[in-house]
């Protein structure tokens, strides 16, 4: 079928997401991206795959119609495609990663430095290719990344990481500073690359669920749901309503728990240890209730293709409802204390600012995007069941600073608590599992879920034997990491931890 504004023949991808796909040539590849950009869309993900003959590059675009997924076949001998970073700047790192893993080249790209490949495998070997033989290849020696140098009187560099001073994930930050002021920050990630996409390619669809749940541990529910959604679409099955409602309950609990943790750490990084103590108590209470009702503190593997592992009994639902009431009171009180604390507000306001125009230009997404005026939330724009019943209120700010990201978190906690109560009140009865039909060979499925950080995408293609041929899991951190480089400009170095924490991006989710 045709979609308005897009001059292509699309096929609907079966499943719960409004998603269409089309095979394109190089000209259509570019024009489709341009059209998406012009109508206010953004790039959700870019990845590559190997086909029976040659390769393909895929782009998932968020448009007014939903998700548009285009794939451009690439020749075996010269796997090249037009780079799209001029249209979507966020594409640059994804294109570099696609080259590191598959050897497909983005033409016309100004930055072709390796991204996920450090020194663990040679530059002319591509791990995601079928015939990759380097399962235990030795390191190739020195890893010499060409950071951009800033020269001038009094400018010097501070290299930070990959091992950081706190309990956080590894990555390298290269600051060029003058006095205390940051002139430039350059990130270098990929330290946690552990071959997730290669592992997927040897798994059955059922096995892949556990791996998807461990792409980024703090978003395990979002990944679990996105993965399950993709599989269920490929199997053409509809889930019992109760399974979907329980998934939404778990997803909102994941959002609340992460937001509570972040609100505590942001307070702590601004010198208010009281905030960390209080919010971490509230978070721990939630985790303990998760363990009591679902058997896992972070709800890992609670969502499986076909439904949910744990049904939650009526009395446990009532307990979750009571907890929501108590949380609402406690968080409201803490919000007063945060709002009225002049020392804290002095640190949060006008710190690490991303203006709405820059956010729109570079494609800032998810929670951080909403704090910079980008009103994207899948629960609002393309709500899967049961979100279509709730009229979810989007939390948004225009100021784009740390204070805005704090305010959006507070608003989202309150909205999620409202949703939790609604879900419990209206929870349908019935089964929580559907039987999965045999996985179709050569099928494609897609899952797209609004996790607490932003939208998580999982795209699966099966092989002729029904096993996974390619599974790409995409974290919103890909889009948002480059914006931290902008957010810190002209801030002082000691504010970096606070700014970084206010985004709280996943390293594991983007390093794969």
């Amino acid at each position, binding site marked *: 079928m045709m979609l308005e504004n897009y001059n292509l023949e699309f096929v609907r991808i079966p499943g719960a997401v409004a998603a269409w796909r089309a095979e394109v040539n190089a000209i259509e590849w570019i024009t489709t991206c341009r059209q998406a950009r012009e109508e206010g869309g953004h790039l959700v993900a870019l990845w590559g795959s190997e086909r029976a003959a040659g390769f393909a590059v895929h782009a998932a675009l968020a448009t007014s119609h939903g998700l548009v997924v285009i794939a451009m076949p690439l020749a075996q001998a010269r796997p090249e495609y037009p780079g799209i970073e001029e249209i979507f700047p966020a594409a640059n790192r994804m294109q570099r990663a696609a080259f590191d893993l598959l050897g497909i080249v983005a033409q016309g790209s100004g930055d072709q430095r390796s991204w996920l490949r*450090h*020194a*663990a*495998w040679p530059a002319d070997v591509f*791990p995601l290719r079928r015939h*990759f033989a*380097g*399962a*235990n*290849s030795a*390191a190739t020696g020195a*890893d010499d990344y060409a950071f951009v140098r800033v020269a001038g009187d009094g400018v010097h560099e501070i290299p930070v990481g*990959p*091992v950081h*001073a*706190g*309990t*956080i*994930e*590894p990555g390298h930050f290269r600051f060029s500073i003058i006095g205390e002021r940051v002139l430039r920050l350059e990130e270098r990630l*990929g*330290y*946690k*690359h*552990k*071959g*997730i996409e*290669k*592992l997927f390619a040897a798994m059955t669809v059922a096995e892949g669920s*556990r*791996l998807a749940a*461990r*792409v*980024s*541990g*703090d978003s*395990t529910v979002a990944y679990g749901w996105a993965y399950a959604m993709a599989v269920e679409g490929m199997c053409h099955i509809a889930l019992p309503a109760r399974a979907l409602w329980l998934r939404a309950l778990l997803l909102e609990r994941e959002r609340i728990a992460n937001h509570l*943790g972040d609100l505590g*750490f942001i307070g702590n990084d601004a010198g208010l240890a*009281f905030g960390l*103590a*209080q919010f*971490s*108590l509230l*978070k*721990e209470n939630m*985790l303990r209730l998760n363990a009591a009702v679902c058997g896992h*503190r*972070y709800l*890992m593997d609670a969502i499986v293709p076909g439904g949910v592992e744990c049904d939650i009994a009526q009395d446990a639902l009532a307990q979750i409802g009571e907890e929501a009431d108590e949380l609402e009171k406690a968080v409201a*009180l*803490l919000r*007063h*204390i945060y709002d*009225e*604390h002049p020392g804290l507000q002095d640190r949060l306001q006008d710190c690490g600012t991303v203006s709405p125009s820059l956010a729109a230009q570079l494609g800032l997404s998810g929670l951080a995007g909403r704090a910079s005026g980008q009103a994207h939330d899948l629960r609002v724009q393309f709500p899967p069941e049961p979100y279509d019943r709730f009229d979810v209120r989007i939390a948004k700010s225009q100021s784009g600073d740390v204070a805005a990201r704090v305010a959006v978190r507070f608003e989202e906690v309150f909205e999620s608590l409202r949703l939790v109560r609604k879900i419990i009140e209206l929870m349908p009865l019935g089964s929580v599992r559907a039987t999965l039909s045999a996985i179709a060979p050569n099928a494609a499925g897609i899952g797209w879920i609004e996790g607490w950080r932003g939208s998580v995408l999982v795209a699966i293609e099966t092989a002729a034997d029904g096993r996974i041929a390619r599974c790409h899991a995409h974290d919103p951190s890909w889009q948002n990491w480059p914006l931290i480089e902008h957010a810190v400009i002209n801030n002082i170095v000691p504010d970096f931890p606070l700014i970084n924490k206010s985004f709280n991006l*996943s*390293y*594991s989710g983007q*390093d794969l």
Partner: protein
Amino acid sequence: MLRLLKQIAVTGIKTEPPPAADEALRATGERLRADILEYFGGALTIRHVDAGSCNGCELEINALNNPYYNLEGLGIKFVASPRHADMLLVTGPVSRNMEVALQRTYDATPEPKLVVALGDCGCTGGIFGESYASRGRVSNVIPVDVAVPGCPPTPFAIMQGILTAISAKKT
């Protein structure tokens, strides 16, 4: 300000009793003398190294410092540099891209030192195993004293692992 002080008073003390050591977690024979361990037992400093985890273990390490577990109340605290550390707490399968950094962090930690590997990945490589990108378990790269399984291990289990590492072996 009044609200803040009132909230501190209302919250009260939430800290729960710590677990006892568990010999089953010991990965190698004891490497340090009992008198050194006793010395560590009073004031242990830990450097955490994420060598490639999914970040689930990090969530639980952070939970160790919430008021319920209050690890610092036992005289155990996290420090910003391996040069200040008595113990490395290592998570993840060791990604090949982190191998050098982990080795250097280990070398930078002064002797005598202890290593606790955390999580199913730290213990065995977990779901990620060994591959072109992963060296698998932590002990494939540096010596490990105590290994704490779990995906992720609970804060209680992590505390137990840390306390086992600094307790003299009961024979």
